[in-house]
């Protein structure tokens, strides 16, 4: 437990807000259990990736401005997504190359921003969470979390400490084919990629698929369900916060 209680702002992410609020509450519970004081700035929408990755820099920049205003003054900004976390940590500062003041503010924000599991482990030094989980899981390394933020061992450590049996895929690091707008711009390629991923998941025999990014999870769960698979897909925060009872697995009814 921390000596002083850091003020943490939760960047909910648009997908968690719209699709799976439980992940947001799981993040709050994990952060509070770790001794943080959590606030959720009201004036947040999206990190801007849909615009940024579609070449619409002006819109991405406007949204980034809003983020700088909404998330100033906190000790940390925590994001339950490697993809949005990567956007805040690595990409938003580059949107202000022509404005030293905003660039400096964006860099200061980037330095204080962390993906949820990385924050709990790398920053707070957490070795285990309060919750227990006894099932078998397989963990998909989402691309941005893995390659932009170096998240690989941390979620596995916490899961193992909670009692989960981890069954690795043959290639947990290969992209699931979501890619934001990619999945609807090139649906056939995306479907093939997620289909290969679903095969890899099934081959592990794990009961539950976990990942740290809701976009990838919606994609993988959607494919698994289409194939009639019984694998349950969940965001890792739900498991670590002991909130699997609060919501059915992704793509399943309660």
């Amino acid at each position: 437990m921390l000596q002083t209680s850091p003020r943490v702002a939760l960047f909910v992410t648009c997908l968690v807000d719209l699709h799976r609020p439980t992940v947001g509450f799981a993040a709050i519970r994990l952060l509070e259990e770790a001794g943080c004081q959590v606030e959720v700035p009201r004036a947040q929408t999206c990190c801007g990736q849909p615009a940024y990755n579609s070449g619409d820099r002006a819109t991405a920049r406007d949204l980034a401005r809003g983020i700088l205003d909404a998330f100033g003054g906190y000790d940390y900004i925590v994001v339950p997504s490697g993809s949005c976390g990567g956007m805040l940590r690595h990409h938003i500062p580059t949107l202000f190359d022509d404005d030293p003041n905003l660039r400096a503010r964006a860099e200061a924000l980037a330095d204080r921003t962390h993906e949820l599991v990385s924050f709990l482990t790398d920053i707070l030094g957490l070795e285990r969470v309060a919750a227990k989980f006894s099932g078998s899981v397989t963990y998909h390394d989402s691309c941005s979390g893995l390659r932009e933020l170096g998240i690989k061992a941390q979620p596995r450590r916490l899961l193992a400490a909670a009692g989960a049996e981890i069954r690795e895929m043959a290639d947990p690091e290969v992209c699931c084919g979501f890619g934001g707008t990619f999945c609807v711009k090139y649906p056939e390629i995306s479907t093939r990629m997620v289909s290969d991923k679903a095969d890899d998941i099934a081959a592990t025999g794990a009961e539950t698929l976990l990942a740290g990014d809701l976009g990838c999870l919606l994609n993988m769960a959607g494919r698994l369900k289409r194939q009639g698979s019984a694998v349950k897909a969940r965001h890792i925060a739900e498991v670590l916060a002991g909130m699997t009872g609060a919501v059915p697995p992704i793509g399943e009814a309660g």
Partner: protein
Amino acid sequence: MLATSPAFKENAVHALAEPGLQKALARTKPHFHAKRASAVAALPEFEQLRDIGRNIKNHTLAHLDFYLETWEENVKRAGGQVHWCATAEDARAAVLAICQKAGARTVTKGKSMISEEIALNEHLERHDITPVETDLGEYILQIRNESPSHIIAPAFHLNREDWEESFRRAHTDLPADRVFHERRDIMTEARTKLRERFLAADVGITGANFLIAETGSSVIVTNEGNGDLTQTLPRVHIVLASIEKLVPTIEDTISLLRLLARSATGQDFSVYTTFSTGVRRADDLDGPAEYHVVLLDNGRSAMLGSPFQEMLRCIRCAACMNHCPVYSVVGGHAYGWVYPGPMGAVLTPTLIGIDQAGNLPNASTFCGKCESVCPMKIPLPKMMRHWREREFERHLSPQAVRTNLALWGFVARRPGLYRLVTRIGAAALGWLGRRRGRLSRLPLAAGWTKGRDLPTPEGETFFVRYARAQRRGRGAA
């Protein structure tokens, strides 16, 4: 070569349904991934070497004018000649002029992607000169009248059956009982046929992996030795190279060679690494009487000082495409022009225009695997995004995409409105999926639902629930 890049989507759909191609592509992983991984694991300083390689190329590109001039002086000193070519057309003309002056009827060719870029073979054939590809992969593609699908393994899209079928069709003297069970059988057949062509050639054309400023040398790496026969047997040797192949010194070349084969095929070193410096000297055992370098710009100098400058560090190892999850399911031909995969997605728009090649930088999930394996640390996803920005600025992206983006942007800029819209959206989708937690079909979402179900939202947005929890004084959501 006519670009089919505008039809990338259709090409990809076709490729996904092509069993032979899929069978060939399934070899990528065992063939390239595992080998590169073990080669890298066996060299503890590989990561440091990547930094060294990047720095060598950055330095060279920052002083490219100086190194090009130094290199040309040294080429001349060794009895060679440099032909500066601004465009593909200039390069074709330069090669043809050299061949015609030499009275060439047959030219042998080592593997060269620049030759593909400038569509050299067609040009030579139009002028009654027969080009003979001597790289095994290129040789079979020439028989089949196909273009390479990969920059270092040009016939990667073919299977053994295809080789056998092509040989039987082209080599009419083949006995019916000849077997092609193994790679060795294929090699032997090609080697026998090519030996005659090597000896008959008047001119030999090779590419270059590096051009060394301090010595004026060109360097090629091969695994078949065909490049050496191509460049030492004929009287005239033409090197086809582009301006970014320059490196300052032999020592720099060695550093880059340590990265190249490991990144490409997972070998510590290629089987043959050949340095060529000028013409045959009095006491040399072999070598050409004429040594020409046809040096191509074709838009590259315009990349200097642009957001795409870092692409000029590329040493054409193909690690990016070998590890690309998109390339590895659609193959190289889907990209529709000479350079496929992530490096092609950045380079091709420079060479044929973003209006033609717009699909290429878009057909990426930005998974970042390419950048993570690039020996020269080229930020490929970043540069693909730059192309998307140019496309967006020039209004080349599809209107539907632009309209959706504008609508979404309008709402996302206004948190109050955004709360309202997401509240309605989450409730509507949640209601539609209330029984199964997912939808199999949804109007306007066919791209998603054709191949997968659409998991539906919980129903209330986070912010609605959070506001309620706050009112109740925290705790129960």
